[in-house]
C-alpha cells in the first residue's frame, strides 16, 4: 500500500478543483483511502490521515469516522500524535457523543505527564470542550495543577478551572483554597487567568463574593492595577505605550463586580478609577478600551457623583471621536445610563442628535433610541424636528420604530394641540406606510379630542391624500376624519390656515378612488365606505350619489364591504329615521370619570349602525361587567381596575353590535370598562394634550426598576414626575423578549389600590420581537394625591411559540422617589 499522500499535497490538489463536483470527487476518493488506512491500524500514518480529515471537515465534509482515530492518537506516546489527536478531539468530538468519555483516562494521564507541553494540551482540551462528567472526574487533577509553581501550567489550570465551574458549578468550592495566593504571582499570564477565575466565582456565587470582599481582594487588585499604570515601559506587555491592557480591563471588570451594591468596596476603588479615567492615553483603541471598561465600572458601582460625571464626560468625548467603534460603544453605554444620570447625559444631547446622521446603521439605531430617551418638555420642539428629519431619510427598518417613538413622545410632551396634529401629519405623510396598525385608532382618538382643530386637521388630511392615497394608515385616518368632519371641510371653516375650496363631489371622488384603488387594503376600504355613509348626514347635495355607491357595494366580493353596504342600504331604506342619530358626530373619546357608568368610553372610530336593534346598544352594561372581570382576574378588593383610554384598532366587525365590539377589544388591546363610580377627578388625565410642557429635567434621577422578568419576558419601569402636578407620576414601561421567538398580541393591564388612579395610554405595538431586538413601550400615568406607597398588580397576556400565555404579578419595588 503506497504511503498516504501528505497533507499539504492534498490541500494543493483540492484547491485545483474547478467545480464543487470535482472537489467532492477528490474528497470522496481521499476519504476512501483514509478509511482503508485506518482499517489497517497503521500507526505511522494515522497522524497524517487525521490531519487531512480535519482539513476536509473544515470544508464541510463529514468526518465522524475519524473520531476513534483521534482517541488513538491521543493515547500515543509521540507528541506529534498527541498534538493532532487533541486538536481532532476538539474539532470532531463533542459531549453529545458517548465516545468522548473514552478520552478521560488519557487526559488524566497526560495531566500528570512529565512534559509540560503535553500537560498543556490536556488542560487545553479539557478547558475547551470537557463535558460535565469529564470535569467531575478530572477536577481534582486541575486543582492540583492550580497550586503548582510552574506558571505555564498554573495559568492554564486557572482557565481550565473556569470551564469546570461553568460545567459543574457545585465544584466551585474545591478551588477556593488554591485561590489564596494566586494574585501574588508576578507572571502576567497567571495574573490574568486568576482574575478571570475570581470573576467567574464572584459572578456565580454571592457567598464567594462576600468571601472575597472580606479577604481584602479589592485593595489587592487596586495595588496591582496601580503598579501597571505607574510602572515604566515593560516591553513584554506593552501595547501602544500601555502596560498590559488586557489585564487592566479584566481587573476593572472584577472590581465592578466587587463594588456593585457595596459601599465599602466602592469607596476603596474610587481613587484608582479616577486615576485610570484621567491618566489613560486616548489616542489609540487600546487606551479607549480601558476607559470604556472604567466607565462601565464607575456607572455600576456606588461611586460618588463627581466620578459619575467624569464617566459620562468620557462617553461624551467618545461621541466626538473619529473612530466609529468608539462612538458606537459610547452610544450603547449612554443608553444604559440615561435613566439614572439623565441630566448629565442631556448635556451631550446635540452630539447624540448629530449621530443620527451617521452612516453606520448600528450607530443610527442607538442614536435614535437615545434621542427618544432624552426628549422632554423643554427640548421637544427641537428634538422632534431632528427626529422627523431622521424619519424622512432613514432606512426602512427604522421607520416603524421611529414613527412609534415620535407618537409616544408627542403625546407626552406636545406643547400645543396644533403642534401635535402637525407632527402626526408629518409622520403620516413621511412614513405613512410604516406606521403600525394600532397607531391609527390612537391618532383618531387624539384628533377627536382636539375639538378646535377638527377643521384644520381634516383639511390637512384631505390635502395629503389628494395627491397620494397609497399609504394605508394615512388613508385610514384621513377617511375617518373626512367621514366625521366632512361638513367642516366643504364649508371652509378652517381658522389655522387658508381654507380650501372643496365641493362635496370632490370629497366623494377621493373617497371613491380609495374604494376602487388596488392599493387599498380591505380595512382601508371599510374605513372609506363608512366615511361615505357618514357623509350622508353631513352633506346636503350628494345624498343620492352616496346612496348609489352604497348600493353598488352591496354586491362586492369582499364580504366585509358587502355586509356593511347591505346594512347601510337598509339604513337608507327601512330605518331612515334613525340614520341621523346613528351617524351623529362622535363624542370626545377619553376616559370620563365624573358621571359614572353612563359616560362610557367610546371604543373605536366607527359607529356601527345597530340595525337589528331598535334601541341603542346598552353600552353601559357590558363595560361594567368587564370591569368586574378585571377585578376578578386581578383579585383583591382594594384594587380598582385601570381603565385605559386607548381605543382599539379594528373597525366594527361583522354583526355590527357595539357589544361585540367591546368583546373584540379584549383581544386586541386594553379592555374598556366602566369606571367604578368615583368622585370627580382633576383633569390630570388630559395632561398629555394640554398646551403646557409638563415635565422637565427635575424628573431625572429616579432609578428605574425591573418590574417583571420571567420566561424571557422582561418589563422595565422608568419614572418621571410632573412639575405642574406633584401627585402625578408617569411610568414608561418597556417590554423586551430575550427568547428566540416573537411574542405577539401582547397586552399589558394594571391595577392599583383604591387611593390611586391610573391611566394607560396605548402601546407602541403588540409584538415584542425576539432576541431583545426591539421593545414595546407604553405610558402609564398615576395620580397619587395621598402620596401613598405605590403598589401595582399587573396582568400580561401574549402569544408565544404557538400557545397563549398569561401571567399575574405584583410590583412592589417602586423607588420612593416615584411616589413620595
Amino acid at each position, binding site marked *: 500500500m503506497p504511503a498516504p499522500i*501528505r497533507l499539504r499535497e492534498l490541500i494543493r490538489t483540492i484547491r485545483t478543483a474547478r467545480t464543487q463536483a470535482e472537489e467532492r470527487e477528490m474528497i470522496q476518493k481521499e476519504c476512501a483511502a483514509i478509511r482503508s488506512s485506518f482499517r489497517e491500524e497503521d500507526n505511522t500514518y494515522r497522524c497524517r490521515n487525521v490531519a487531512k480529515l480535519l482539513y476536509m471537515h473544515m470544508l464541510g465534509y463529514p468526518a465522524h469516522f475519524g473520531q476513534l482515530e483521534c482517541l488513538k492518537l491521543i493515547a500515543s506516546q509521540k507528541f506529534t500524535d498527541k498534538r493532532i489527536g487533541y486538536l481532532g478531539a476538539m474539532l470532531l468530538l463533542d459531549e453529545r457523543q458517548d465516545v468522548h468519555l473514552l478520552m478521560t483516562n488519557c487526559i488524566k494521564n497526560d495531566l500528570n505527564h512529565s512534559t509540560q507541553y503535553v500537560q498543556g494540551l490536556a488542560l487545553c482540551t479539557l478547558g475547551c470542550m470537557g463535558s460535565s462528567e469529564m470535569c467531575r472526574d478530572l477536577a481534582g487533577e486541575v486543582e492540583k495543577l492550580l497550586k503548582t509553581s510552574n506558571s505555564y501550567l498554573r495559568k492554564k489550570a486557572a482557565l481550565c478551572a473556569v470551564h469546570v465551574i461553568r460545567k459543574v458549578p457545585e465544584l466551585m468550592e474545591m478551588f477556593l483554597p488554591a485561590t489564596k495566593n494566586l494574585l501574588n504571582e508576578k507572571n502576567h499570564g497567571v495574573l*490574568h487567568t486568576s482574575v478571570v477565575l475570581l470573576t467567574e466565582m464572584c459572578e456565580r456565587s454571592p457567598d464567594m463574593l462576600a468571601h472575597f470582599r472580606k479577604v481584602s481582594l479589592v485593595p489587592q487588585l487596586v495595588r496591582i492595577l496601580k503598579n501597571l499604570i505607574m510602572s515604566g515601559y515593560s516591553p513584554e506587555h506593552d501595547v501602544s505605550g500601555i502596560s498590559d*491592557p*488586557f489585564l487592566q480591563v479584566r481587573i476593572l471588570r472584577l472590581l465592578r463586580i466587587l463594588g456593585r451594591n457595596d459601599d465599602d468596596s466602592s469607596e476603596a476603588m474610587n481613587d484608582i478609577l479616577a486615576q485610570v479615567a484621567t491618566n489613560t492615553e486616548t489616542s489609540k483603541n487600546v487606551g479607549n478600551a480601558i476607559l470604556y471598561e472604567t466607565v*462601565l465600572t464607575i456607572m455600576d458601582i456606588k461611586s460618588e457623583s463627581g466620578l459619575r460625571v467624569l464617566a459620562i464626560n468620557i462617553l461624551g468625548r467618545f461621541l466626538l471621536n473619529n473612530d466609529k*467603534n468608539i462612538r458606537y460603544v459610547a452610544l450603547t453605554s449612554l443608553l444604559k445610563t440615561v435613566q439614572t444620570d439623565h441630566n448629565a447625559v442631556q448635556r451631550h444631547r446635540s452630539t447624540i442628535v448629530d449621530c443620527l446622521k451617521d452612516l453606520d446603521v448600528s450607530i443610527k439605531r442607538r442614536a435614535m433610541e437615545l434621542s427618544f430617551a432624552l426628549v422632554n418638555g423643554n427640548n421637544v420642539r427641537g428634538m422632534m424636528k431632528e427626529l422627523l428629519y431622521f424619519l424622512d431619510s432613514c432606512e426602512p427598518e427604522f421607520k416603524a420604530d421611529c414613527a412609534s417613538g415620535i407618537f409616544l413622545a408627542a403625546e407626552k410632551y406636545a406643547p400645543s394641540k396644533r403642534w401635535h396634529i402637525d407632527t402626526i401629519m408629518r409622520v403620516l405623510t413621511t412614513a405613512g406606510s410604516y406606521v403600525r396598525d394600532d397607531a391609527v385608532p390612537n391618532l383618531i382618538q387624539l384628533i377627536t379630542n382636539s375639538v378646535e382643530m377638527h377643521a384644520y386637521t381634516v383639511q390637512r388630511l384631505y390635502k395629503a391624500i389628494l395627491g397620494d392615497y397609497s399609504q394605508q394608515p394615512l388613508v385610514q385616518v384621513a377617511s375617518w376624519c373626512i367621514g366625521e368632519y366632512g361638513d367642516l371641510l366643504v364649508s371652509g371653516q378652517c381658522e389655522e390656515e387658508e381654507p380650501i375650496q372643496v365641493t362635496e363631489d370632490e370629497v366623494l371622488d377621493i373617497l371613491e378612488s380609495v374604494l376602487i384603488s388596488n392599493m387599498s387594503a380591505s380595512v382601508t376600504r371599510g374605513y372609506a365606505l363608512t366615511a361615505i355613509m357618514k357623509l350622508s348626514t353631513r352633506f346636503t347635495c350628494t345624498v343620492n350619489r352616496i346612496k348609489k355607491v352604497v348600493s353598488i357595494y352591496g354586491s362586492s366580493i369582499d364580504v366585509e364591504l358587502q355586509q356593511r353596504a347591505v346594512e347601510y342600504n337598509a339604513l337608507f331604506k327601512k330605518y331612515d329615521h334613525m340614520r341621523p342619530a346613528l351617524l351623529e358626530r362622535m363624542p370626545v373619546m377619553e376616559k370620563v370619570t365624573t358621571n359614572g357608568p353612563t359616560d362610557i368610553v367610546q371604543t373605536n372610530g366607527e359607529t356601527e349602525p345597530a340595525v337589528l336593534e331598535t334601541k341603542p346598544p346598552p353600552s353601559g352594561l357590558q363595560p361594567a361587567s368587564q370591569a368586574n372581570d378585571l377585578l376578578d382576574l386581578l383579585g383583591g378588593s382594594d384594587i380598582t381596575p385601570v381603565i385605559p383610554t386607548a381605543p382599539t384598532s379594528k373597525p366594527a366587525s361583522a354583526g355590527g353590535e357595539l357589544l361585540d365590539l367591546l368583546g373584540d377589544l379584549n383581544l386586541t388591546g386594553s379592555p374598556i370598562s366602566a369606571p367604578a363610580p368615583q368622585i370627580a377627578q382633576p383633569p390630570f388625565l388630559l395632561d398629555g394634550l394640554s398646551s403646557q410642557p409638563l415635565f422637565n429635567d427635575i424628573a431625572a434621577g429616579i432609578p428605574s426598576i425591573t418590574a417583571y422578568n420571567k420566561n424571557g419576558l422582561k418589563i422595565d419601569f422608568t419614572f418621571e414626575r410632573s412639575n405642574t402636578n406633584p401627585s402625578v407620576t408617569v411610568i414608561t414601561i418597556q417590554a423586551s423578549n430575550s427568547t428566540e421567538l416573537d411574542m405577539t398580541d401582547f397586552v399589558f393591564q394594571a391595577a392599583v389600590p383604591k387611593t390611586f388612579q391610573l391611566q394607560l395610554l396605548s402601546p407602541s405595538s403588540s409584538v415584542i420581537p425576539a432576541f431583545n431586538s426591539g421593545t414595546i413601550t407604553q405610558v402609564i400615568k398615576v395620580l397619587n394625591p395621598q402620596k401613598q406607597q405605590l403598589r401595582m398588580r399587573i396582568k400580561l397576556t401574549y402569544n408565544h411559540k404557538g400557545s397563549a400565555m398569561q401571567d399575574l404579578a405584583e410590583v412592589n419595588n417602586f423607588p420612593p422617589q416615584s411616589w413620595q
Partner: protein
Amino acid sequence: MRFMLLFSRQGKLRLQKWYLATADKDKKKMVRELMQVVLARKPKMCSFLEWRDLKVVYKRYASLYFCCAIEGQDNELITLELIHRYVELLDKYFGSVCELDIIFNFEKAYFILDEFVMGGEIQDTSKKSVLKAIEQADLLQEEDESPRSVLEEMGLA
C-alpha cells in the same frame, strides 16, 4: 468569547473555534448566517454588530475576516485588541502571514490560537511567552521523529 471564525471574502471558512458545545448542524447554520451578515457590511461601518443574542466583533485583515462572538458583558474594544494580538502572533510565526499560510498550515493556526486563548479567555498577555511555547512544542515534534523529521511527515518540509 463564544466562538471565533476566520473566513475569506468569498465565504470560505479557514478556521472555526467554538468555546461552547454546539451541535454540528447548528454550527454550520450559524457560520453560514454570520458569514452572510458580515460579508454584507460596507467598509465604512463599525466593527460591531448585534446578531442573535450575541455581540459580534469583526475585523478584516487583507483577504481574511476575523470574527469573534462575545457576550453581553464583554468589552468590544478589547476584543478588537485580542484579534489584533492573534494576527500579530500569526505574523511573527509565519513571517508576514497571508491567507495562504493559514490555508496550508491550518493546524498551526489552531495550535497558536490554543496557546493564546483557552475556553474563550486569554491565557497569556505576553506575545513573547506564547511564541516561545509554540516554538518549544514545535521542537518537541521534531525531536519525536528519528530519523525522519515529523515536519516532513506532515508534508511541511
